């Protein structure tokens, strides 16, 4: 993977037309080969650093909500943050940082607050299965966060942001050095939000919402070796603490990560990569009164990867490689806080063939082996056809999600109410067959993309009530259910004008087609829309940017488990809502930027706060300042 430098961002950010943007924006996620958006055969959505700035985003949640209409973040058990992306849960969306997996989960979701945006160069989102390149969990989509590197000799900056309503604060700093063959970028960010109460209409008791605070420290060091290669070392520390009004116990999480990657070019088109990555994610309970901090969850992953890309001819590129990983898990949800571990290994090969200047065909296959499960084979095929301003893409890919250690071996007493048991080694992997069809029109200042996605999921892993367990009392057990079929269509139009105006609208349609005899249980909204209009102009102090962005989510009607047999369903409705944000950003010279924000512009408050309602108390304001000292 080539060195991705800040200069790429600058280039894409200042692109004058949409056509320039598609020609200059490089993506690596869909094929593990650097390709421009214009040339990639797999439908890829890129969120640039400029998009992140315009969303005033603190973490990945803020970015995805602003950019993708089909994404929703909801509160699950004990206010744990879970994501759904067009009918798929967080466990079906693989999140990577610089192509590497992340340790740790809560209710099968990544810790999204861990993924802060301070050092992010761009985010690449590939919808549809992608297990042929990324293995388990790439059932429905891959979100790859690409981090920045410093390109200036000295890059020193600080930023701060204060919110008016929830005690929100975000403070950060960076120190970048680029001298000779060495590049280093250190980023530090702290953010927090106080606990608060939300009130249903007519309710005076209120419902407490947890507050939280996070520390994130990341270092990325790059060195060009005398042999012409590049060595990248990275390290990171993350600390999260969550508390409520009753401050007798706080939930904490920590992550310690590190990695080393060596890359070098092979011939004119090829590349070689060897990498090692380590990631440890902990959860602990902290008791302020006694100042005791007890570890109750630890997930440690060590992985190595080798990758070789060869340009065999002008029209054929071959990419092949393999990974090996150890996965260790200690959790309070195993009997007596026990531990389990597993090994995984895989090999993959992909051919990128250009049989004609208008055609690009990518085909790949991967085999994964998991010590507690067995082997899985996943293929993929993607085709791009170019003609004039049109790009037509079609693809088929398989995805799978192997049962996790928790899903296999859980043995957890749920508050003395019932037990939850793992499904053991009888659990099968979830599988998906996903088909995508996309048409893209890009001309001068305009672009229009229409993408259809059909995903057939089988052997879905979930918990079901099993009356035969616990001596006939019944208990929950992880098991496979037949699955479902999901259809989504996304339409995105974007325009940039010389007058300083630009805009982007994305609409997503979603529908679940349950298997015969089943009901629609997907709580994803059938219609969702995100929109952004911004205006830039230069005047005496510097550049003024005004951004209005918002999202609309339609009502959702679905079924949820109910009744004493744990097999019957009852209908549920989630009301529609819309939220808008106004940002005014003013630069002062080349070094300082002040940002004024109005969040929830129309002062929306839910009548009843459901698990998938926005936990907003109404309109709020924010003030931010960032200074590039050097």
């Amino acid at each position, binding site marked *: 993977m080539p060195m991705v430098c800040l200069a790429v961002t600058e280039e894409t950010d200042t692109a004058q037309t949409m056509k320039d943007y598609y020609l200059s924006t490089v993506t690596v996620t869909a094929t593990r080969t650097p390709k421009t958006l214009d040339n990639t055969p797999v439908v890829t959505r890129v969120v640039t650093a400029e998009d992140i700035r315009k969303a005033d985003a603190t973490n990945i949640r803020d970015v995805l909500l602003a950019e993708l209409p089909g994404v929703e973040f909801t509160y699950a058990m004990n206010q744990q943050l879970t994501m759904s992306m067009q009918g798929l849960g967080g466990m079906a969306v693989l999140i990577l940082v610089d192509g590497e997996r992340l340790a740790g989960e809560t209710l099968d979701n990544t810790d999204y607050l861990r993924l802060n945006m301070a050092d992010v160069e761009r985010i690449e989102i590939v919808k549809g299965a992608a297990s042929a390149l990324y293995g388990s969990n790439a059932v429905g989509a891959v979100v790859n966060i690409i981090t920045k590197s410093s390109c200036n000799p000295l890059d020193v900056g600080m930023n701060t942001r204060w919110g008016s309503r929830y005690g929100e604060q975000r403070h950060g700093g960076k120190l970048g050095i680029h001298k000779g063959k060495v590049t280093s970028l250190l980023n530090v960010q702290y953010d927090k939000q106080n606990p608060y109460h939300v009130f249903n209409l007519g309710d005076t008791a209120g419902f407490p919402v947890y507050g939280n605070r996070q520390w994130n420290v990341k270092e990325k060091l790059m060195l060009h070796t005398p042999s012409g290669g590049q060595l990248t070392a990275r390290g990171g520390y993350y600390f999260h603490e969550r508390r409520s009004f009753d401050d007798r116990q706080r939930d904490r999480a920590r992550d310690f990560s590190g990695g080393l990657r060596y890359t070098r070019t092979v011939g004119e088109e090829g590349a070689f990569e060897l990498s*090692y990555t380590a990631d*440890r994610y902990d959860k602990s309970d902290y008791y302020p009164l006694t100042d005791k901090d007890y570890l109750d969850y630890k997930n440690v992953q060590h992985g190595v990867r080798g990758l070789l890309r060869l340009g065999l001819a002008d029209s054929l590129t071959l990419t092949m490689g393999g990974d090996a990983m150890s996965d260790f898990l200690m959790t309070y949800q195993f009997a007596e806080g026990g531990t389990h571990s597993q090994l995984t290994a895989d090999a993959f090969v992909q051919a990128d063939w250009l049989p004609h200047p208008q055609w690009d065909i990518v085909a790949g296959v991967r085999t994964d082996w998991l010590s507690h499960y067995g082997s899985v084979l996943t293929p993929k095929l993607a085709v791009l056809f170019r003609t004039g301003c049109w790009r037509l893409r079609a693809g088929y890919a398989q995805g799978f999600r192997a049962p996790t250690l928790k899903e296999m071996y859980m043995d957890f007493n749920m508050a*003395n109410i019932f037990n939850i048991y793992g499904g053991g080694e009888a659990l099968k992997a979830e599988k998906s067959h996903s088909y995508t069809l996309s048409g893209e029109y890009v001309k001068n200042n305009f672009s229009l993309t229409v993408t259809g996605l059909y995903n057939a999921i089988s052997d879905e892993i979930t918990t079901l009530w099993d009356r035969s367990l616990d001596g006939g009392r019944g208990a929950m057990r992880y098991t496979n259910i037949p699955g479902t079929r999901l259809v989504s269509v996304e339409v995105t139009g974007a325009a940039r004008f010389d007058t300083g105006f630009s805009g982007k609208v994305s609409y997503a349609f979603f529908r679940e087609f349950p298997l015969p005899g089943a009901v629609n249980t997907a709580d994803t909204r059938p219609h969702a829309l995100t929109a952004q209009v911004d205006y830039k102009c230069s005047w005496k102090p510097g550049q003024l940017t005004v951004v209005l962005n918002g999202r609309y989510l339609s009502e959702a009607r679905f079924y949820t488990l109910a009744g004493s047999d744990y097999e019957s369903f009852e209908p549920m409705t989630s009301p529609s809502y819309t939220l808008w944000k106004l940002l005014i950003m003013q630069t002062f010279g080349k070094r300082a930027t002040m940002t004024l924000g109005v969040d929830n512009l129309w002062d929306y408050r839910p009548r009843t706060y459901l698990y998938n309602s926005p936990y907003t108390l109404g309109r709020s304001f924010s003030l931010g300042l960032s200074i590039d000292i050097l």
Partner: protein
Amino acid sequence: MLRRFLPVVILLLCACDSIYDEREAEPLTDGHHFRNINASRYTHWVYVNLQKGDTTSVSVSNDLPPEDWDIALHRYDIKTRSGAGMETPYLSLDELKQAVDEGTFVRPAADDWVRDVEDSIVVDMSHMMDGYLVYAPSHRNPALSHWVNVDMRSMPPLYTMSEQVYLVLLADSSCVAIRFTGFTNPNAYGAKGYVSFDVEGISW
């Protein structure tokens, strides 16, 4: 470089365990502080002898208490041997003792005590998902059982502890003050239904 780097990373990841505290089995009581009494079973009352510092667990369905006991715990329900207890306005044991010493808090009259009543307690939560719980008749003290509020509007429930000090009338007509300090057991991964409290004899 790889050979130098890998052991350092592995060592650092393993060393992270040292930043946490070890779980240690704590003694039940030192006479004044009772820690993590396991009252988590819905099917059992746990009888506590405050003087001797011991506990006896007895099934609700066969409720024959031990000879010597002062209070009994069932999750967050409390009953007393004397049949009387009350909530005070004080937020710490020291505050209460100071009020007693200064004479601003006198021994409650017989009518001031809140009597244990014939009530019902939850003995089976396994049908909660069906919308009903199984109850059994039992005595409980309404005042003492307010020491923690369980808000079941969400799952898991929200727990809010009272900061108040409680008075318990003992069988020999002496009084003890109790301030509850916890309902979870840090040594059992934060499991609920473990009761901790500080206790102090009060005399006028």
